């Protein structure tokens, strides 16, 4: 009897780092050995890149409350900057070019974050669209960015770090996983630091934040820089590890919306929300196309798939906003909470 009732007591006292650690162990030690290359190439690589972009946007939108519709533009800046650093600076290690690309994206993010100093709400959301269109235009228009490729396409370099070849699908998976782990940890540290609380203060009440001494202007630019840094590196992963060949049109407005949807569905202002949302966004089209072709057969062509995908995503967004505004993260918390009572019942 005592052995059975002690079970929930132990799990109730599980420290918060157990679950992430377990997931990391599985991701590093189990997945590459049991996962097929389809699983890795078609699902896990885009999942990792999109999750990281979601983490970045969540800092900006979830924590600091600044809605951005230009995430894909920052991904593009990251991808093209990494490409150019790698191409033009002889002997620069790949990781350094990617980190520098993050820096460039952060700088671009600050520039497009400047309007946030005077605008908020819808006006700001609309002004981030400027980033979306301007970046896409500049990357297509000026051949220099894509090394004068006629259609603006860039090809990823060989992924070699310190002499180790990461070019296989497992290698690219490890590469992405390490980058995502490090940056997610970084984002989590920021979110739980004083800076992170400043972000939340600005989101919840800017005037009050100013009164208690939060440097509002500086913090806003900082969050734009940090979020763009992470999103830029996510873009580099998207281009180098997942797609290998990208063009500016791949970073269009739909991609920006996709990332926004990831954090809405996953849960605003949570780190794990970005991962849950990205998982849904990556897995769900695959499931939908399987189910659709099973039920409808040949009628379910790619056009129908595309349209029904839009309908389902749109519906999901609205359903989540109405029923679970805190997203999958809150849903998961409630579900596990049911199995894990916080106070164990005393048993006589």
């Amino acid at each position, binding site marked *: 009897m005592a052995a059975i009732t002690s079970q929930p007591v132990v799990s109730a006292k599980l420290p918060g780092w157990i679950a992430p650690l377990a997931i990391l162990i599985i991701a590093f030690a189990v997945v590459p050995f049991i996962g097929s290359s389809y699983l890795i190439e078609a699902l896990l690589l885009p999942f990792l890149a999109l999750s990281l972009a979601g983490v970045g946007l969540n800092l900006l939108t979830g924590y600091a409350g600044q809605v951005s519709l230009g995430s894909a533009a920052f991904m593009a800046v990251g991808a093209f900057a990494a490409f150019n650093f790698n191409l033009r600076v002889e002997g620069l290690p790949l990781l350094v070019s990617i980190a520098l690309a993050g820096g460039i994206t952060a700088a671009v993010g600050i520039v497009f974050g400047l309007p946030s100093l005077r*605008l908020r709400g819808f006006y700001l959301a*609309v002004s981030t*669209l400027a980033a979306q269109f*301007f970046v896409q235009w500049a990357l297509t228009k*000026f051949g220099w960015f894509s090394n004068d490729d006629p259609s603006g396409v860039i090809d990823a370099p060989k992924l070699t770090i310190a002499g180790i070849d990461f070019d296989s699908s497992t290698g690219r998976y490890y590469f992405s996983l390490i980058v995502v782990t490090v940056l997610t940890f970084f984002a989590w540290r920021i979110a739980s630091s004083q800076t992170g609380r400043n972000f939340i203060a600005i989101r919840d009440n800017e005037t009050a934040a100013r009164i208690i001494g939060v440097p509002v202007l500086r913090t806003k630019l900082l969050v734009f820089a940090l979020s763009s840094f992470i999103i830029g590196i996510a873009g580099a992963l998207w281009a180098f590890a997942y797609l290998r060949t990208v063009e500016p049109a791949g970073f269009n407005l739909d991609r920006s919306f996709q990332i926004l949807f990831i954090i809405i569905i996953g849960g605003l202002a949570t780190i794990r929300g970005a991962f849950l949302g990205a998982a849904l966004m990556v897995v769900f089209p695959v499931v939908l196309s399987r189910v659709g072709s099973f039920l409808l057969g040949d009628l379910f062509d790619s056009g129908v798939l595309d*349209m029904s995908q839009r309908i389902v995503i749109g519906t*999901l967004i609205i359903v989540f906003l109405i029923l679970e505004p805190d997203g999958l993260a809150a849903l998961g918390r409630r579900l596990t909470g049911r199995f894990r009572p916080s106070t164990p019942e005393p048993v006589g």
Partner: protein
Amino acid sequence: MESFDYLFFLEVLTGGLLSGVMYSLVAIGFVLIYKTSGVLNFAQGALLLFAALTFVSLVERGVPFYLALALTFAIMVLLGIGIERAVLRPLVNKPPITLFMATLGLSYIIEGAAQLLWGTQVHALELGIEDVPFEFYGVFISQFDLFASAVAALMVIGLTLFFRYTRVGLTFRAVADDQFAALAVGLRLPRIWATVWATSGLVALVAGLLWGARSGVQFSLSLVVLKALPVLVLGGFDSIAGAIIGGLLIGASEKLAEVYIGEYFGGGIEGWFAYAIALVFLLIRPSGLFGQKLVERV
């Protein structure tokens, strides 16, 4: 540039102003909804696509022009009521940005549904207006653009009269002024919102037909919303006059910039130039040309 070609300048300017009217047409639909419910309705472009696509498909199936017009309008009204029921009512009292994201989702649904229903191919839309430019004191003006401006003018006059002299218009204004006070005197918000969405469906229908006649009815039609957003930012989200003047300003400066300074940027700047103007303007006047001064909640 020894001698400045005034005639050419005038022609570009007129063309720009007239295409600005087309932007205003889309922007008015936004303003209607923003004014009365405080929602920036991103789905306006999708509504426009849906209206135009429904109309064209009906006409292609042999439905007479006016019947198709009436049917489409009826469908838009039903859609407006449905949106109020399914999306707005459960989200009452949520922050505006949540509602905005809901309309993003809504635009995905409507775009998907419209094309699932009627197919993705491009439809030509013939309104029976010839697009022949005619000469007016040496300046060539597109007849179609003039027609579009006339329609826009009629619509603005109609809406203004409607807002000012009808009972429904009065309730719209009451809701726009103060939702709580409107509720307190017994106005039924859900019904009013459904009416507003139906009205903006009508605006979407008109704008959709004009845009569709000009560039074909297809998916890209829903992207005109991206052209209307800088107009709204410039004019203020809650002013019909602002939408008109913002549209004219954006249309004119966009065309002039493309012709006169576009070459220095390598062309193709119309995708973002409107946003640049709107941004620069906003840095000086954060609530737009005619927008109400934002009252900050503390």
